[in-house]
């Protein structure tokens, strides 16, 4: 049985939950994750968007990604906490694990978008790294 996913933003205006099993757990070092967070990377889990619900307003910001699509990022308009990302047209959410009520169990499987990592960024040598995304079966 899966553990319920619950969390929200710094000020409490945004709350979310999901019963889904995470599809993946990664550290993303892409420029969009950097600029959104003000940090070197964002640790996140993938969740089916259909199995996720939230209360409270979020602001979505859209930016062109390097594959020609639109990447979107949601943040709380009151406190600014960046909560999740989504690629337009895809059914998967990238949930920022720091916003979980209990983020302690996060176990990243890989580091992605190493190609845009900052020179001072430090990696866990035991994890596989990919210049961008890992190869995925169609």
């Amino acid at each position, binding site marked *: 049985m899966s553990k319920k996913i619950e969390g929200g*933003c*710094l*000020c409490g205006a945004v709350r979310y939950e999901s019963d889904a099993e995470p599809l993946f757990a990664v550290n993303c070092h892409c*420029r*969009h*994750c*950097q*600029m*959104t*967070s*003000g*940090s*070197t*990377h*964002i*640790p996140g889990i993938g969740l089916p968007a259909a199995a996720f619900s939230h209360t409270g307003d979020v*602001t979505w*910001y859209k*930016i062109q990604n390097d594959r020609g699509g639109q990447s979107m*990022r*949601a*943040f709380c*308009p*009151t*406190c*600014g*906490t*960046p*909560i999740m990302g989504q690629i337009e047209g895809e059914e998967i959410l990238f949930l*920022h694990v*720091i*916003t979980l009520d209990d*983020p*302690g169990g*996060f*176990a*990243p499987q890989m580091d992605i978008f190493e190609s845009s990592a*900052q*020179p*001072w960024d*430090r*990696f*866990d040598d035991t994890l596989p790294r990919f210049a961008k995304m890992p190869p995925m079966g169609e």
Partner: protein
Amino acid sequence: MSHKIKGGCQCGAVRYSTDAEPMVTFNCHCTHCQQASGAPFTTAVAVQRENMTISGDVIEHTQTSDLGTLVHRFSCAKCGAYVYGISDGFGATAVNAVTLDDASWVEPQMEVYVSSAQPWTHMDPALPKFDKLPPMEES
């Protein structure tokens, strides 16, 4: 004169600059940094607040720190990028290093608030680590 401290958010609405030299660069693992960033820590460059120019609409969020001082964090109101923070107890602005136009010179000197670091965070073993802040001389 240094021009290291110049940058802004991803949509360009928030911009900051100063000629002052960076004072210190650190990775902060405090809970507030985590929540404001959506990341396990921020890499921040502290620079003298005086003479710093900052423009653009921001979301300000204020919390009381463990030292009892007010800490203000500023994100772009349009794109949500977490850009900088200030603490009422310090005369410095902490800009998030990744928001610098040129961040290639950045080299964190220490890890602070490791007492609240996430158990899965990967830290640089070579950097000095402090449970909270390093001992500081009274100013």
